[in-house]
Protein backbone atom coordinates (compact mmCIF):
# COMPACT_ATOMS: atom_id res chain seq x y z
CA UNK A 1 0.00 0.00 0.00
CA UNK A 2 1.24 3.45 -0.94
CA UNK A 3 1.64 5.72 2.03
CA UNK A 4 1.24 9.46 1.66
CA UNK A 5 -0.04 12.32 3.76
CA UNK A 6 -3.62 13.31 3.08
CA UNK A 7 -4.69 16.74 1.96
CA UNK A 8 -6.75 19.10 4.08
CA UNK A 9 -9.81 18.23 2.05
CA UNK A 10 -9.37 14.53 2.66
CA UNK A 11 -8.80 15.10 6.32
CA UNK A 12 -12.09 16.94 6.57
CA UNK A 13 -14.08 13.97 5.45
CA UNK A 14 -11.84 11.55 7.26
CA UNK A 15 -12.77 13.28 10.50
CA UNK A 16 -14.63 10.38 12.13
CA UNK A 17 -11.89 7.92 11.31
CA UNK A 18 -9.68 10.25 13.30
CA UNK A 19 -11.76 9.36 16.35
CA UNK A 20 -9.31 6.54 16.67
CA UNK A 21 -6.31 8.77 16.74
CA UNK A 22 -4.46 10.65 19.35
CA UNK A 23 -3.48 13.91 17.77
CA UNK A 24 -0.83 16.22 19.05
CA UNK A 25 0.02 19.73 17.99
CA UNK A 26 3.61 19.87 16.89
CA UNK A 27 5.97 22.83 17.19
CA UNK A 28 5.30 23.83 13.60
CA UNK A 29 1.69 24.40 14.52
CA UNK A 30 0.73 21.34 12.56
CA UNK A 31 -0.89 18.26 13.94
CA UNK A 32 0.50 14.81 13.96
CA UNK A 33 -1.19 11.64 14.99
CA UNK A 34 0.36 9.20 17.35
CA UNK A 35 -1.03 5.88 18.33
CA UNK A 36 -4.60 4.85 18.83
CA UNK A 37 -7.19 5.72 21.40
CA UNK A 38 -10.60 4.48 22.29
CA UNK A 39 -11.14 7.44 24.55
CA UNK A 40 -14.17 9.52 23.48
CA UNK A 41 -12.72 12.49 25.37
CA UNK A 42 -10.17 12.75 22.56
CA UNK A 43 -12.96 13.66 20.15
CA UNK A 44 -12.93 17.23 21.31
CA UNK A 45 -9.23 17.76 20.89
CA UNK A 46 -9.47 16.13 17.46
CA UNK A 47 -12.39 18.32 16.48
CA UNK A 48 -10.45 21.31 17.74
CA UNK A 49 -7.62 20.41 15.44
CA UNK A 50 -9.82 20.26 12.34
CA UNK A 51 -9.22 22.73 9.60
CA UNK A 52 -5.51 22.84 10.26
CA UNK A 53 -3.17 21.34 7.73
CA UNK A 54 -2.87 17.87 9.10
CA UNK A 55 -0.74 14.88 8.53
CA UNK A 56 -2.64 11.88 9.67
CA UNK A 57 -1.95 8.28 10.16
CA UNK A 58 -5.23 6.54 10.33
CA UNK A 59 -6.21 3.48 12.23
CA UNK A 60 -8.68 1.33 10.38
CA UNK A 61 -9.69 -2.28 10.67
CA UNK A 62 -7.17 -4.27 8.64
CA UNK A 63 -9.83 -5.44 6.21
CA UNK A 64 -10.85 -1.88 5.47
CA UNK A 65 -7.38 -0.86 4.34
CA UNK A 66 -8.00 -1.64 0.67
CA UNK A 67 -10.85 0.86 0.66
CA UNK A 68 -8.95 3.42 2.71
CA UNK A 69 -6.33 3.71 0.04
CA UNK A 70 -5.75 7.45 0.35
CA UNK A 71 -4.79 7.18 3.93
CA UNK A 72 -1.31 6.87 5.24
CA UNK A 73 -0.99 3.59 7.04
CA UNK A 74 -0.32 3.59 10.71
CA UNK A 75 2.21 1.17 12.14
CA UNK A 76 0.51 -1.53 14.18
CA UNK A 77 0.26 -0.60 17.82
CA UNK A 78 -1.25 -2.42 20.73
CA UNK A 79 -4.98 -1.89 21.10
CA UNK A 80 -5.66 0.13 24.19
CA UNK A 81 -7.72 -1.42 26.92
CA UNK A 82 -11.02 0.16 27.84
CA UNK A 83 -11.03 1.08 31.51
CA UNK A 84 -12.62 -1.64 33.62
CA UNK A 85 -14.75 0.73 35.68
CA UNK A 86 -16.38 3.34 33.48
CA UNK A 87 -19.34 5.68 33.49
CA UNK A 88 -21.81 3.04 32.37
CA UNK A 89 -20.80 0.69 35.18
CA UNK A 90 -21.27 3.44 37.74
CA UNK A 91 -24.63 4.17 36.09
CA UNK A 92 -25.77 0.55 36.52
CA UNK A 93 -24.65 0.34 40.12
CA UNK A 94 -26.34 3.66 40.91
CA UNK A 95 -29.53 2.67 39.11
CA UNK A 96 -29.67 -0.64 40.98
CA UNK A 97 -29.15 1.04 44.35
CA UNK A 98 -31.69 3.79 43.69
CA UNK A 99 -34.36 1.45 42.35
CA UNK A 100 -33.79 -1.03 45.19
CA UNK A 101 -34.13 1.79 47.72
CA UNK A 102 -37.33 2.94 46.01
CA UNK A 103 -38.80 -0.57 46.09
CA UNK A 104 -37.93 -0.87 49.80
CA UNK A 105 -39.45 2.51 50.49
CA UNK A 106 -42.64 2.10 48.42
CA UNK A 107 -43.35 -1.62 48.69
CA UNK A 108 -41.41 -2.87 51.70
CA UNK A 109 -38.68 -5.39 52.45
CA UNK A 110 -40.61 -8.48 51.29
CA UNK A 111 -41.04 -7.14 47.75
CA UNK A 112 -37.42 -6.09 47.64
CA UNK A 113 -36.19 -9.55 48.63
CA UNK A 114 -38.55 -11.08 46.05
CA UNK A 115 -37.11 -8.81 43.36
CA UNK A 116 -33.55 -9.59 44.43
CA UNK A 117 -34.09 -13.35 44.45
CA UNK A 118 -35.82 -13.12 41.07
CA UNK A 119 -32.81 -11.36 39.58
CA UNK A 120 -30.44 -13.89 41.17
CA UNK A 121 -32.36 -16.80 39.63
CA UNK A 122 -32.33 -15.06 36.25
CA UNK A 123 -28.61 -14.41 36.61
CA UNK A 124 -27.90 -18.06 37.42
CA UNK A 125 -29.89 -19.14 34.38
CA UNK A 126 -28.28 -16.81 31.88
CA UNK A 127 -24.62 -16.98 32.93
CA UNK A 128 -23.81 -20.34 31.26
CA UNK A 129 -25.78 -19.32 28.19
CA UNK A 130 -24.07 -15.95 27.87
CA UNK A 131 -20.65 -17.53 28.38
CA UNK A 132 -21.34 -20.00 25.55
CA UNK A 133 -22.80 -17.20 23.44
CA UNK A 134 -19.68 -15.10 23.87
CA UNK A 135 -17.47 -18.00 22.91
CA UNK A 136 -19.58 -18.48 19.80
CA UNK A 137 -19.36 -14.74 19.12
CA UNK A 138 -15.59 -14.85 19.42
CA UNK A 139 -15.42 -17.82 17.04
CA UNK A 140 -17.76 -16.12 14.56
CA UNK A 141 -15.43 -13.12 14.55
CA UNK A 142 -12.60 -15.48 13.61
CA UNK A 143 -14.59 -17.07 10.80
CA UNK A 144 -16.14 -13.95 9.27
CA UNK A 145 -13.94 -12.38 6.63
CA UNK A 146 -15.40 -9.01 5.58
CA UNK A 147 -12.14 -8.18 3.78
CA UNK A 148 -13.36 -10.07 0.75
CA UNK A 149 -16.76 -8.41 0.46
CA UNK A 150 -16.23 -4.83 1.64
CA UNK A 151 -14.61 -3.42 -1.52
CA UNK A 152 -17.43 -4.69 -3.77
CA UNK A 153 -20.03 -2.41 -2.16
CA UNK A 154 -19.81 0.14 -4.94
CA UNK A 155 -22.25 2.80 -5.99
CA UNK A 156 -23.58 0.78 -8.92
CA UNK A 157 -24.10 -2.37 -6.87
CA UNK A 158 -27.89 -2.50 -7.24
CA UNK A 159 -29.86 -5.04 -5.29
CA UNK A 160 -26.81 -7.25 -4.92
CA UNK A 161 -25.11 -4.43 -3.06
CA UNK A 162 -28.04 -4.15 -0.68
CA UNK A 163 -27.96 -7.91 -0.04
CA UNK A 164 -24.22 -7.83 0.50
CA UNK A 165 -24.40 -4.81 2.80
CA UNK A 166 -27.10 -6.54 4.80
CA UNK A 167 -25.00 -9.69 5.18
CA UNK A 168 -21.94 -7.66 6.11
CA UNK A 169 -23.88 -5.59 8.65
CA UNK A 170 -25.41 -8.69 10.19
CA UNK A 171 -22.02 -10.25 10.86
CA UNK A 172 -20.34 -7.07 12.11
CA UNK A 173 -19.65 -7.57 15.81
CA UNK A 174 -19.44 -4.99 18.53
CA UNK A 175 -21.18 -1.81 19.60
CA UNK A 176 -21.44 1.54 17.85
CA UNK A 177 -17.88 2.41 18.75
CA UNK A 178 -16.68 -0.46 16.61
CA UNK A 179 -19.32 -0.31 13.90
CA UNK A 180 -19.53 3.37 13.00
CA UNK A 181 -15.91 3.83 11.94
CA UNK A 182 -16.52 0.90 9.56
CA UNK A 183 -19.77 2.45 8.38
CA UNK A 184 -17.96 5.69 7.67
CA UNK A 185 -15.09 3.89 5.98
CA UNK A 186 -17.60 2.25 3.63
CA UNK A 187 -19.33 5.58 3.03
CA UNK A 188 -16.23 7.55 2.15
CA UNK A 189 -14.94 4.73 0.00
CA UNK A 190 -17.88 5.40 -2.28
CA UNK A 191 -20.36 2.80 -1.08
CA UNK A 192 -23.79 3.94 -2.08
CA UNK A 193 -25.93 5.50 0.65
CA UNK A 194 -28.59 2.79 0.34
CA UNK A 195 -25.97 0.10 0.91
CA UNK A 196 -24.61 1.97 3.92
CA UNK A 197 -28.08 2.30 5.43
CA UNK A 198 -28.80 -1.36 4.73
CA UNK A 199 -25.53 -2.10 6.52
CA UNK A 200 -26.37 -0.01 9.60
CA UNK A 201 -29.90 -1.39 9.75
CA UNK A 202 -28.71 -4.99 9.42
CA UNK A 203 -26.06 -4.45 12.06
CA UNK A 204 -28.67 -3.09 14.44
CA UNK A 205 -31.67 -5.29 13.62
CA UNK A 206 -30.08 -8.64 12.80
CA UNK A 207 -26.66 -8.32 14.45
CA UNK A 208 -25.86 -12.03 14.67
CA UNK A 209 -23.28 -11.31 17.33
CA UNK A 210 -25.82 -9.74 19.68
CA UNK A 211 -28.42 -12.34 18.82
CA UNK A 212 -25.99 -15.08 19.82
CA UNK A 213 -24.76 -13.44 22.98
CA UNK A 214 -27.97 -11.88 24.28
CA UNK A 215 -31.16 -12.68 22.52
CA UNK A 216 -30.87 -16.42 22.17
CA UNK A 217 -29.86 -17.10 25.78
CA UNK A 218 -32.35 -14.66 27.25
CA UNK A 219 -35.39 -14.93 25.00
CA UNK A 220 -35.22 -18.49 23.67
CA UNK A 221 -34.65 -19.92 20.22
CA UNK A 222 -38.26 -19.86 18.99
CA UNK A 223 -38.42 -16.13 19.61
CA UNK A 224 -35.05 -15.61 17.91
CA UNK A 225 -35.84 -17.74 14.85
CA UNK A 226 -39.17 -15.99 14.24
CA UNK A 227 -37.72 -12.53 14.81
CA UNK A 228 -34.55 -12.93 12.74
CA UNK A 229 -36.30 -14.68 9.83
CA UNK A 230 -38.85 -11.91 9.50
CA UNK A 231 -36.22 -9.19 10.00
CA UNK A 232 -34.00 -10.45 7.15
CA UNK A 233 -35.66 -8.51 4.29
CA UNK A 234 -36.12 -5.29 6.29
CA UNK A 235 -32.58 -3.84 5.97
CA UNK A 236 -32.72 -4.42 2.22
CA UNK A 237 -36.03 -2.57 2.02
CA UNK A 238 -34.69 0.24 4.20
CA UNK A 239 -31.67 0.53 1.91
CA UNK A 240 -33.86 0.63 -1.20
CA UNK A 241 -36.08 3.28 0.39
CA UNK A 242 -33.00 5.31 1.34
CA UNK A 243 -31.83 5.19 -2.29
CA UNK A 244 -35.16 6.58 -3.44
CA UNK A 245 -35.12 9.31 -0.80
CA UNK A 246 -31.51 10.20 -1.53
CA UNK A 247 -32.42 10.84 -5.16
CA UNK A 248 -35.10 13.26 -4.06
CA UNK A 249 -35.42 15.56 -1.07
CA UNK A 250 -32.70 14.06 1.11
CA UNK A 251 -29.77 14.05 -1.23
CA UNK A 252 -26.48 14.00 0.67
CA UNK A 253 -23.67 16.18 -0.58
CA UNK A 254 -20.62 13.97 -1.05
CA UNK A 255 -17.68 16.08 -2.21
CA UNK A 256 -15.34 13.09 -2.01
CA UNK A 257 -17.21 11.42 -4.87
CA UNK A 258 -17.04 14.40 -7.23
CA UNK A 259 -13.40 13.76 -7.92
CA UNK A 260 -14.21 10.21 -8.92
CA UNK A 261 -13.89 7.01 -7.00
CA UNK A 262 -10.82 6.36 -4.93
CA UNK A 263 -8.58 3.88 -6.59
CA UNK A 264 -6.66 1.29 -4.71
CA UNK A 265 -3.04 1.83 -5.65
CA UNK A 266 -2.03 -1.69 -4.71
Amino acid sequence: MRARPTSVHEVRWLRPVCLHLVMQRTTQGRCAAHGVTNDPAMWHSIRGALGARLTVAVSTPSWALPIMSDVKQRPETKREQRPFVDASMIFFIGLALVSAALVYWVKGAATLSHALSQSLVLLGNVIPLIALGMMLGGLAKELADPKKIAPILGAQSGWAGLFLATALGAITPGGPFAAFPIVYALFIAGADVGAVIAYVTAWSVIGIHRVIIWEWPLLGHEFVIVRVLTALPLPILAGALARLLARGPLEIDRPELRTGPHKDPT
Partner: protein
Amino acid sequence: MISSLVILGIAVLIAGYFARRRDPAAIGRAAKFTVDEGSRLAIRLPFSLIAASCLAELIPDRMIVSMLGPDTGLTGITLASLFGGLLPGGPVVSFPIAILLAREGAGGAQVIALITGWSVYAFHRVIAYEGPIMGWRFVALRMIASSFVPIASAVLAGALAQALGWSIAIK
Protein backbone atom coordinates in the same frame (compact mmCIF):
# COMPACT_ATOMS: atom_id res chain seq x y z
CA MET B 1 -33.36 -23.12 28.91
CA ILE B 2 -31.77 -26.58 28.69
CA SER B 3 -32.52 -26.94 24.98
CA SER B 4 -31.02 -23.51 24.30
CA LEU B 5 -27.92 -24.55 26.22
CA VAL B 6 -27.56 -27.77 24.19
CA ILE B 7 -28.07 -26.00 20.84
CA LEU B 8 -25.59 -23.26 21.78
CA GLY B 9 -23.07 -25.88 22.92
CA ILE B 10 -23.34 -27.73 19.61
CA ALA B 11 -22.99 -24.45 17.69
CA VAL B 12 -19.85 -23.61 19.68
CA LEU B 13 -18.36 -27.03 18.89
CA ILE B 14 -19.09 -26.70 15.16
CA ALA B 15 -17.78 -23.12 14.93
CA GLY B 16 -14.78 -24.11 17.02
CA TYR B 17 -14.00 -26.98 14.65
CA PHE B 18 -14.02 -24.73 11.57
CA ALA B 19 -12.14 -21.90 13.30
CA ARG B 20 -9.46 -24.35 14.45
CA ARG B 21 -9.13 -25.82 10.99
CA ARG B 22 -8.56 -22.35 9.57
CA ASP B 23 -6.17 -21.19 12.28
CA PRO B 24 -5.22 -23.22 15.36
CA ALA B 25 -4.70 -20.00 17.36
CA ALA B 26 -8.28 -18.87 16.69
CA ILE B 27 -9.68 -20.86 19.62
CA GLY B 28 -7.33 -19.08 22.01
CA ARG B 29 -8.32 -15.68 20.65
CA ALA B 30 -12.01 -16.52 20.92
CA ALA B 31 -11.50 -17.71 24.50
CA LYS B 32 -9.64 -14.52 25.32
CA PHE B 33 -12.52 -12.51 23.82
CA THR B 34 -14.95 -14.47 26.02
CA VAL B 35 -12.92 -13.85 29.18
CA ASP B 36 -12.39 -10.15 28.36
CA GLU B 37 -16.05 -9.45 27.59
CA GLY B 38 -17.25 -11.73 30.39
CA SER B 39 -15.18 -10.02 33.05
CA ARG B 40 -16.65 -6.67 32.02
CA LEU B 41 -20.14 -8.11 32.25
CA ALA B 42 -19.52 -9.85 35.56
CA ILE B 43 -20.18 -6.62 37.43
CA ARG B 44 -22.66 -4.90 35.12
CA LEU B 45 -25.04 -7.76 34.54
CA PRO B 46 -26.00 -8.47 38.19
CA PHE B 47 -26.61 -4.78 38.82
CA SER B 48 -28.60 -4.25 35.63
CA LEU B 49 -30.75 -7.30 36.44
CA ILE B 50 -31.37 -6.00 39.96
CA ALA B 51 -32.24 -2.56 38.57
CA ALA B 52 -34.57 -4.07 35.98
CA SER B 53 -36.43 -6.28 38.46
CA CYS B 54 -36.77 -3.44 40.96
CA LEU B 55 -38.04 -1.08 38.26
CA ALA B 56 -40.50 -3.75 37.14
CA GLU B 57 -41.81 -3.93 40.72
CA LEU B 58 -42.30 -0.19 40.70
CA ILE B 59 -44.24 -0.05 37.43
CA PRO B 60 -47.75 -1.44 37.98
CA ASP B 61 -48.44 -4.67 36.02
CA ARG B 62 -51.76 -3.40 34.86
CA MET B 63 -50.15 -0.41 33.23
CA ILE B 64 -47.75 -2.62 31.27
CA VAL B 65 -50.54 -4.98 30.17
CA SER B 66 -52.82 -2.15 29.13
CA MET B 67 -50.06 -0.36 27.20
CA LEU B 68 -47.92 -3.21 25.82
CA GLY B 69 -50.02 -6.33 26.30
CA PRO B 70 -50.63 -8.86 23.50
CA ASP B 71 -54.05 -7.33 22.81
CA THR B 72 -52.79 -3.80 22.27
CA GLY B 73 -52.06 -4.56 18.60
CA LEU B 74 -50.49 -1.92 16.39
CA THR B 75 -50.82 0.81 19.01
CA GLY B 76 -48.87 -1.26 21.54
CA ILE B 77 -46.29 -2.15 18.90
CA THR B 78 -45.77 1.49 17.93
CA LEU B 79 -45.58 2.54 21.56
CA ALA B 80 -43.08 -0.25 22.31
CA SER B 81 -40.80 0.71 19.40
CA LEU B 82 -40.71 4.35 20.48
CA PHE B 83 -40.10 3.34 24.09
CA GLY B 84 -37.32 1.01 22.89
CA GLY B 85 -35.70 3.88 21.00
CA LEU B 86 -35.55 5.86 24.22
CA LEU B 87 -33.80 3.09 26.20
CA PRO B 88 -30.25 4.18 26.91
CA GLY B 89 -27.17 2.01 26.78
CA GLY B 90 -26.27 -1.34 25.31
CA PRO B 91 -27.83 -4.80 25.42
CA VAL B 92 -26.97 -5.14 29.09
CA VAL B 93 -29.76 -2.65 29.81
CA SER B 94 -32.28 -3.33 27.09
CA PHE B 95 -32.54 -7.11 27.21
CA PRO B 96 -33.22 -7.40 30.96
CA ILE B 97 -35.85 -4.67 30.60
CA ALA B 98 -37.42 -6.52 27.66
CA ILE B 99 -37.56 -9.78 29.64
CA LEU B 100 -39.04 -8.19 32.71
CA LEU B 101 -41.66 -6.29 30.72
CA ALA B 102 -42.54 -9.59 29.04
CA ARG B 103 -42.90 -11.27 32.42
CA GLU B 104 -45.12 -8.47 33.61
CA GLY B 105 -47.46 -9.01 30.69
CA ALA B 106 -46.09 -7.37 27.53
CA GLY B 107 -46.92 -9.32 24.36
CA GLY B 108 -44.30 -11.14 22.22
CA ALA B 109 -44.73 -8.87 19.20
CA GLN B 110 -44.52 -5.84 21.47
CA VAL B 111 -41.26 -7.15 22.94
CA ILE B 112 -39.88 -7.54 19.40
CA ALA B 113 -40.93 -3.97 18.63
CA LEU B 114 -39.19 -2.83 21.81
CA ILE B 115 -35.90 -4.57 21.02
CA THR B 116 -35.95 -3.52 17.38
CA GLY B 117 -36.89 0.04 18.30
CA TRP B 118 -33.99 0.09 20.73
CA SER B 119 -31.56 -1.09 18.05
CA VAL B 120 -32.88 0.88 15.07
CA TYR B 121 -34.01 4.21 16.52
CA ALA B 122 -31.43 4.18 19.35
CA PHE B 123 -31.71 7.87 20.09
CA HIS B 124 -28.77 7.75 22.50
CA ARG B 125 -26.55 6.18 19.82
CA VAL B 126 -27.65 8.76 17.28
CA ILE B 127 -26.65 11.59 19.59
CA ALA B 128 -23.38 10.02 20.74
CA TYR B 129 -22.06 8.45 17.54
CA GLU B 130 -24.14 8.63 14.44
CA GLY B 131 -24.83 12.37 14.31
CA PRO B 132 -21.24 13.45 14.97
CA ILE B 133 -19.76 10.78 12.71
CA MET B 134 -22.12 10.53 9.76
CA GLY B 135 -23.70 13.98 9.79
CA TRP B 136 -27.30 14.89 10.56
CA ARG B 137 -28.51 14.63 6.98
CA PHE B 138 -27.43 11.00 6.90
CA VAL B 139 -29.16 10.48 10.26
CA ALA B 140 -32.38 12.00 8.90
CA LEU B 141 -32.19 9.81 5.80
CA ARG B 142 -31.54 6.65 7.82
CA MET B 143 -34.24 7.45 10.36
CA ILE B 144 -36.86 8.02 7.67
CA ALA B 145 -35.78 5.04 5.58
CA SER B 146 -35.78 2.63 8.52
CA SER B 147 -38.66 4.11 10.52
CA PHE B 148 -40.94 1.28 9.43
CA VAL B 149 -38.50 -1.47 10.48
CA PRO B 150 -39.43 -2.05 14.17
CA ILE B 151 -43.15 -2.04 13.45
CA ALA B 152 -42.82 -4.23 10.36
CA SER B 153 -40.54 -6.62 12.25
CA ALA B 154 -43.03 -7.01 15.09
CA VAL B 155 -46.04 -7.42 12.80
CA LEU B 156 -44.27 -9.93 10.51
CA ALA B 157 -42.84 -11.91 13.42
CA GLY B 158 -46.26 -12.06 15.07
CA ALA B 159 -47.79 -13.30 11.83
CA LEU B 160 -45.06 -15.91 11.27
CA ALA B 161 -45.33 -17.17 14.85
CA GLN B 162 -49.07 -17.52 14.41
CA ALA B 163 -48.65 -19.34 11.08
CA LEU B 164 -46.14 -21.75 12.61
CA GLY B 165 -48.19 -22.16 15.77
CA TRP B 166 -45.16 -21.07 17.83
CA SER B 167 -45.31 -18.96 20.93
CA ILE B 168 -43.10 -15.89 21.07
CA ALA B 169 -44.39 -15.01 24.51
CA ILE B 170 -41.58 -15.11 27.04
CA LYS B 171 -42.21 -17.20 30.11
